[in-house]
């Protein structure tokens, strides 16, 4: 579904991503794990067209998307839940969800999808008239995910959904990610919480300062001695 080949990205003179190659198959949960500053967010920003990459290829559903402007990628089904949630804090929960469906023309289906989102996140339903800025961190994460679901993504890219959340909430969020995947959405998950990410992912890539240093089935990486030492704290 997504194929990234030899991607290079620079911030000024800093070479942030070196020849990154990876792929995501339809129906999978794939995770990119790595420490802070490894380049995980840069990859997602490049995929979403928010920062230009120097060289390399990005193919989504067989189409080259490197030249597609950011705002058109949503229509293709490539949707991102950004790091730090980035909900529109002065807009209501309902308006945030509407923004998620901004590119869609099928009004009736959109109306039905509000219920789908409220099924996944009952707490958002209670708070649907509240300004998003007044929600708790966990609720904002749920809103950011619900907002992305409103676009009916084929591939949902999530950047650090566990950031700043209590362990119980993290469990809850990851259970929901699994549920979203079971409903047919492919997931690309970027996480520092490698333990959680590997426990729900099918495959994983390990990123270190702009390079992919390891990849394989998530279950295998959970047992890998280097990964254990560096990322799992065991």
């Amino acid at each position, binding site marked *: 579904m997504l194929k990234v080949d030899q991607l290079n990205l620079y911030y000024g003179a800093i070479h942030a991503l070196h020849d990154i190659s990876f792929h995501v198959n339809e129906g999978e949960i794939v995770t990119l794990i790595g420490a802070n500053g490894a380049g995980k967010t840069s990859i997602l920003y490049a995929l*979403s*067209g*928010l920062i230009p990459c120097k060289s390399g290829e990005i193919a989504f559903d067989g189409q080259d998307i490197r030249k597609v*402007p*950011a*705002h*058109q*990628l*949503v*229509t293709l089904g490539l*949707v*991102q839940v*950004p790091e*730090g949630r*980035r*909900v*529109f*804090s*002065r*807009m209501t929960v309902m*308006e945030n969800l*509407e*923004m*998620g469906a*901004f*590119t869609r023309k099928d009004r009736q289906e959109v109306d039905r999808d509000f219920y789908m989102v409220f099924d996944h996140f009952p707490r958002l339903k209670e708070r649907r008239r509240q300004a998003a*800025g*007044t*929600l*708790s*961190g966990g609720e*904002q994460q749920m809103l950011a995910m619900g*907002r992305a679901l409103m*676009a009916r993504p084929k591939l949902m890219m999530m950047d650090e959904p566990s950031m*700043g959340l209590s362990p119980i909430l993290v469990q809850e969020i990851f259970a929901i990610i699994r549920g979203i995947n079971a409903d047919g959405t492919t997931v690309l998950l970027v996480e520092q919480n490698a333990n959680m990410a590997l426990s729900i992912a099918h495959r994983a890539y390990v990123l270190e300062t702009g390079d992919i240093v390891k990849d394989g089935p998530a279950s295998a990486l959970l047992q890998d001695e280097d990964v254990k030492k560096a990322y799992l704290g065991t």
Partner: protein
Amino acid sequence: MTLFLNQLINGLHVGSIYALIALGYTMVYGIVRLINFAHGDILMVGAYTAVVLTTMLGLPFPVVVVLVILVCVLFGVLIERIAYKPLRSSPRISSLITAIGVSMLLQNLALLIFTPTPKPYPFSLNIPPLSIGGLQIGFTTVLTIVVSAALMILLQVLVAKSRAGKSMRAVSEDYDAAQLMGINVNTTITFTFAIGCALAGIGSVLYGLAYPTVSPTLGSLPGLKAFIAAVLGGIGIIPGAMLGGLIMGLAESLTKAYISSRLSDAVVYGILIVVLLFKPSGLLGRRTREKV
């Protein structure tokens, strides 16, 4: 009492015009964080457009109004595309200086084309004043207040309910997140400039009807006052611009009537200073504190 009511109505008259112009400043600031100092000069562009269209083409008033609005929108959109868009990721001071430059460019172009000699505004509405309970209110005054009020309500509804309005609010909060929703940031910014300049176009007609002299610096003073109105109400906040404009107009006309016409500007600026001392974000400004 009659004097007071008359001054109140006069204040609402000027205040409505300030408010219409202030909306352009505040909407643009809200979305690109730029004080568009050329915004006042759009008023001048509108006034000269009216002069040219009537003296050279002899078009009737309603047609001229529509064309004035279109020309103002066109200027605003072109200014954004040519002068501001290339600087969007530069430091803010660069676009601020550019805005001052655009303002001077427009004024000097007008000086070159139309000479410094003022020209009369080509229209006046010869409709007898309305008397309401012993008060004589000029038709232009009534028209200005009614039109402005209607436009402000319309704008509020547009921003709150329409798809374009919601995308404006989303972009004003977070460019990147808005793009991730599939919102075209460039289109949204263009749309914002267009609305602001359409309001300035209408403002220029109302201003011309009230002060029927057209000169190259026509936009400077109302532009400055509208900018102050926007800051007074809380820059970036639409109802703030409306409130700020009305307060400025009222303060100005009441000072002229009861204190001294020479002090009116001093009082107006004084109000601004006092408000900013106690509430630096403006009357309706919010101190955003968001949960992380």
